[in-house]
């Protein structure tokens, strides 16, 4: 099978962009990625795109050029962008295409996500009774996790502070001001233990990648970033997932755990060799839990790492170095690709102002979405 490398990256700033459609942002990101790779739309042989609320991704061809190339649309909750990348990686590995494009974009309405029960395989009573909100679920999962593994409220606040600090260093982030401890800790309660300034908001944005066979990438760029491992996994019986009226008594590893193991195995490296990670951080609980679910640390170790400052950019395990979901917001189709964009900048040594020191050469990107799906990619240069 062919190896896969990223030859070009592009990203439209995340945030609120009145007057710009999601397609405008997607096309911007695509053009930036193509320019970064030194290629044009005419070089793309396969495309895969993702948007939750925007137009179908393949409709973008009317703005790029009608060339009858295969263009697949995917969806998968908040893991949507990862699903698109993996789909495109498979096109390269299989030999279907030498050069492929991945794009993810969204422009969500303000306020928390409005959802409908039919999309998520629960009946209408589940929404009427007030269970159909994602943050509520993550708050419950986090409360239990804090109880089981000794994670403090203080750690939640510090994770949020780190998100805004990193966001302030990222010119394409939405929230670009640091926030102090008291402001976060005393903000209004959303779903205990989460307060308003801990919770990411839906936002707008787009990201795109040009991926290709390794030998093509090596002709295009001096520093290709290789997608050494990837995995998309759905849930097993026994795991605790969003929008579940019940949970079995027996436990099972989460989709994130399974996907991370598979991605690292495919990459041939252990999680201890990962130097930087972007994980699903819709609020601090998820960042903390996903650090362990991906195998980057042991359950419970997060408290020590956070208190020591070791998840910051200068630490031993930098997490969400671009500010993550908390500072960038969540345009569902784009988020996973934003993680890859950031990791590529870091591995290339191009993350000006927020560069992780000592030349990190491997990174992990993880997203998780309803109703229990995770995508993990392992990048190396």
């Amino acid at each position, binding site marked *: 099978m062919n190896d896969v490398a990223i030859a070009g990256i592009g990203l439209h700033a995340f945030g609120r962009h009145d007057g710009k459609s999601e397609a405008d942002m997607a096309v911007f990101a695509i053009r930036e990625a193509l320019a970064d790779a030194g290629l044009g739309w005419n070089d793309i042989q396969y495309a895969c795109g993702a948007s939750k609320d925007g137009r179908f991704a393949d409709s973008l061809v009317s703005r790029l050029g009608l060339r009858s190339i295969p263009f697949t649309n995917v969806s998968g909750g908040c893991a949507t962008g990862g699903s698109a990348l993996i789909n495109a990686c498979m096109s390269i590995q299989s030999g279907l295409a030498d050069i492929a494009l991945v794009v993810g974009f969204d422009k969500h309405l303000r306020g928390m996500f409005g959802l409908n029960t039919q999309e998520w395989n629960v009946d209408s009573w589940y929404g*009427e009774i007030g269970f159909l909100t994602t943050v509520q679920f993550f*708050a419950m999962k986090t409360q*239990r996790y804090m109880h089981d593994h000794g994670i403090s409220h203080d750690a939640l606040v510090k994770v949020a502070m780190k998100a805004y600090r990193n966001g302030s260093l990222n010119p394409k982030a939405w929230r670009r001001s640091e926030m102090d401890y008291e402001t976060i800790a005393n903000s209004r309660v*959303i779903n205990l233990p989460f307060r308003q300034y801990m919770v990411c908001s839906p936002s707008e944005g787009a990201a795109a990648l040009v991926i290709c066979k390794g030998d093509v990438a090596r002709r295009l760029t001096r520093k290709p970033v290789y997608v050494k491992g990837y995995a998309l996994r759905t849930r097993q019986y026994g795991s605790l997932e969003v929008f579940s009226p*019940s949970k079995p008594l027996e436990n099972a590893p989460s989709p994130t755990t399974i996907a991370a193991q598979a991605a690292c195995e495919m990459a041939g490296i252990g999680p201890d060799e990962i130097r930087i990670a972007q994980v699903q951080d819709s609020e601090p609980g998820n960042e903390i839990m996903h650090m362990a679910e991906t195998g980057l640390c042991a359950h419970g170790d997060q408290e020590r790492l956070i208190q020591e400052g070791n998840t910051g950019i200068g630490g031993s395990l930098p997490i969400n170095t671009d500010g993550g979901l908390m500072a960038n917001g969540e345009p569902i189709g784009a988020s996973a690709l934003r993680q890859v964009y950031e990791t590529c900048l870091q591995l290339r040594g191009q993350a000006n102002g927020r560069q992780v020191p000592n030349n990190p050469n491997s990174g992990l990107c993880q997203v998780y979405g309803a109703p229990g799906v995770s995508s993990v990619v392992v990048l190396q240069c």
Partner: protein
Amino acid sequence: MNEIRQVPIAPGLFTWPSDHPRLLGSQCAGCGIYTFPRTGCCPKCGLETLADTELANRGTLWTWTSQSFRPKPPYDAGDTDETFKTYYVGYVELPGQVMVESRLLVDDETQLKIGMPMALEIVKYRQDGDREVMIYAFRPLSA
């Protein structure tokens, strides 16, 4: 005179009217697991060998949270942004069976603690014309 009718929020979730209401789930004849609500296909073994069963009405609080802002539709409690009151949600572990997601009947978070015993109640959720829409919920079991 107008008679108030009590209607479960959805059919088949719990027994009602009843002096001893129970949640309704399924148990798999193949692998023995329980589900809530009832389902036709076992999520563990994939067989269609489930039978309707009444679940335990006592359990232990496994986790919880507050809902401190009024969710968007399809949330429908008959309240408005002005009348909305924080509510509480959790998972209650029914011994030997399954954990169920449930509204929790408490006034504030100081009354909730992981591990505490809980008891099932059927309560009025909202008024739809002449009908009282009923839901299941769990209340801390007083000592």
